[in-house]
Each structure stands twice: as structure tokens, then as C-alpha cells.
């Protein structure tokens, strides 16, 4: 893991490449996280790729309810040569949840094909729209499902468990 000072230096370098790209840095439990601005994620990932973080291991989303901006997307990067891990985090609000997709190749560099299904999953579960994704459809839920299930305000759902004492209340439901 890059230590705390290494992380700060990295953040400074990236800010020089694209000003305003790095919003914040966190060093928690010996792992560094760079908080990025949503518009410059491709630039940052490509810059990190040049610095050795060539493997994108995971793209996942989260919902920071009730903090705003609510939706977050995390990119876990790995440097296989130095065995370093780094997290890229960005936040988007729920009203305008659009980010550039890192999957396709673009003019600013090759894409990350591994993010294909993972971005689709983030779209399916949280509603984050990835601009430029080759095939942004729901991946885990049925195609015509409404709602984004893993948002914190989406109900967990489920069936009431029917025991003998409450089965009359649920007459007609279940078996």
C-alpha cells in the first residue's frame, strides 16, 4: 500500500495533471483512497495506470443515505508488480447520477474491459448511469424491473413468515 505520504504525493501529481480532479484523500487502516471528481474519472484511472496501477479489480457502488451526494462508486486498483492497492472513490448525487464509463476505449486511452458487467451491476442496483457504456442494461434484475434495489430507501421486501398463530391474517397468501 502506498503509505500516507506517498498517497499525498500521488494526489498532488494527479492534481497537477488535471486540476480539481482529486477532491480528497483518506488513509484508513493502511490503505489509501483518492476521492475524485466525477467528471475526471477516466483521466485519473489512466494516469494511475501509467504509474503502475494496471489492474482494475472491482467497481462497486454504494448509497451514502442520508449524506449527500448519495451515490458513490468505488474503483479498486491493484499494482501487481509492487503489490499495492488503491481505491478511487467518487460521489454523485441522486438527481444527476451520470458518470463516464471506463469500459470503452476512448481518445484518452484504452478502456478497462473488466468494468463492463460491474458497471451494469452498479446501474442496476443504484441507478448510476454510465455514459458511453457499450450495453447499459439491467444485469441481475429482470429487464423490466422498476426501481434500484440496493438504494437505502428501497424496501428489503420479502414475504411475511406464516405461522399457525398468524396464518388467518394472511389468508389467501402463501400456499
Amino acid at each position: 500500500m502506498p503509505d500516507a505520504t506517498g498517497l499525498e504525493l500521488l494526489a498532488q501529481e494527479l492534481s497537477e495533471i488535471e486540476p480539481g480532479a482529486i477532491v480528497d484523500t483518506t488513509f484508513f487502516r493502511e490503505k489509501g483512497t483518492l476521492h475524485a471528481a466525477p467528471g475526471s474519472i477516466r483521466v485519473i484511472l489512466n494516469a494511475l495506470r501509467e504509474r503502475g496501477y494496471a489492474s482494475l479489480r472491482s467497481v462497486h457502488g454504494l448509497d451514502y443515505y442520508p449524506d449527500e451526494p448519495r451515490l458513490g462508486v468505488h474503483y479498486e486498483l491493484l499494482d501487481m508488480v509492487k503489490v499495492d492497492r488503491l481505491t478511487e472513490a467518487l460521489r454523485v448525487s441522486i438527481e444527476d447520477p451520470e458518470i463516464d464509463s471506463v469500459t470503452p476505449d476512448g481518445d484518452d486511452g484504452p478502456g478497462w474491459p473488466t468494468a463492463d458487467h460491474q458497471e451494469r451491476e452498479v446501474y442496476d442496483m443504484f441507478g448510476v448511469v454510465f455514459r458511453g457504456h457499450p450495453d447499459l442494461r439491467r444485469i441481475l434484475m429482470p429487464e423490466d424491473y422498476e426501481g434500484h434495489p440496493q438504494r437505502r430507501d428501497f424496501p428489503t421486501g420479502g414475504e411475511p413468515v406464516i405461522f399457525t398463530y398468524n396464518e388467518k391474517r394472511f389468508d389467501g397468501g402463501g400456499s
Partner: protein
Amino acid sequence: MEVNREPIDPRTLRARRLSSHQLLRGSVIEGPNIPAEHEDLTDEEDLQRHVEERVLTTTLDKAVSWARGNSLYPCTFGLACCAIEMMSVVASRVDIARFGFEAFRASPRQADLLILSGRVSIKMAPVVRRIYDQMLEPKWAISMGACCSSMGVFNNYAIVPSDKFMPIDVHVPGCPPRPEALMHGILKLRSMVQEDPTMGWRERYDAVGTEENLPSELPVVHHSVGRPGEGNGA
């Protein structure tokens, strides 16, 4: 010493009785020897008892149910973790082939038992229902595991209990149920099959009159190749 041999007239009652004994029993003892315990029985009772000891009489229904129960063809329908325990049932420790059920058919048309093993998600439920409908009567279903019987460990938006969309005969609880537990469930089903020869799940579950609602407007697809009657004799 003089031995008096008298030929027995085959038309006498006694001669016929003896010959019927011998025919049925294949008795080594020839001649006018009747075992002591059967001496006082009349001819019909004797024959009756003899037949009962050796010949099985039954109704045709029962015979067919017996045969059907001992030759269930399960459909390969592994969904999740319970599928691994279902594979264990096929494996050698708990051997499902002992009972004759090892012929797992991949095609639902050839299967008559659907072992729903694993969690049924909302995307999968219509697929399961369609496969169940494709199976030919008589068909049975076992819901294996807690996830398809009730909601199991996951009581959330993504799972459907199998009772909601298809009729299940035996629920096997467990997460996952041990292979022995699944075997117990299958044997319970076998005894159900052998006792109750009603064909069709609609009779079994008192659901006569419930028919499938197909959408009235199915998209009509025209193929330029292969429709019977069309083409130029290729």
C-alpha cells in the same frame, strides 16, 4: 411280498385333487401324499390358500402406481447450493440409484419429478413454471431446501417461495438439507405416488378449472425457411 397296484381312474375326484396339488406345488412327493396340515381342507380352500401364498393379486391402478413410484425420472434442476447436495444424493454415499431414480433427464418432457433445489429468484420463477408446464402428466415436484419452501435465509425482494407459482408435493427443509434428508423426502414422495393414483396435479390439489392464461396476442413470427407447406420441396 405282494404289492397291489391299482391304476387310479383319472376321473375320480381324488385323482383330480392330487394332480392339481402336484401341478401347483411342483411337489416332489408323488402319489397320494397330502401334507398333514392341508388334509382337512376342501379343494377350493386349499387352492385358494395356495394361490395366496404364491400369486399377487391387485388392482391395475395399484400396480401401475407401484411401478410409477419406483421409476421416477427426476429433472436436472439445480439452482443453487441445494443442487450440490442433490448431486451428493446421486453420488455413492447416499445412492439414489438404489431406488431406481438415477436417470436424471435433462429434458422436462422426459421427466416426471422436478426437484427444485435452491433459491428461486424473480427472474427464474417464470422459467421454472414453464419447465413444470412442459412436463407431462403425472408429475410431481419436491421443493428442496428452505429457500424455495419458505423464503429461507433471505427474506427479500429477490426471492419467490415456490408455493406461489407451482404446486409442490413435498417440502424438504434444511439449508441445505442433508442428502439423507432429501432421500427421506423423495421416499415420502414415492409412497405418496404409490398410494394415490390420481393423475394430474389439478385433481390432486383440487384445482380443476384453473387453466393457463396465455396472452391473446402472441407475436407472430414468419420464417422464410422450413415452414411446413411452404418452400419448394427442399
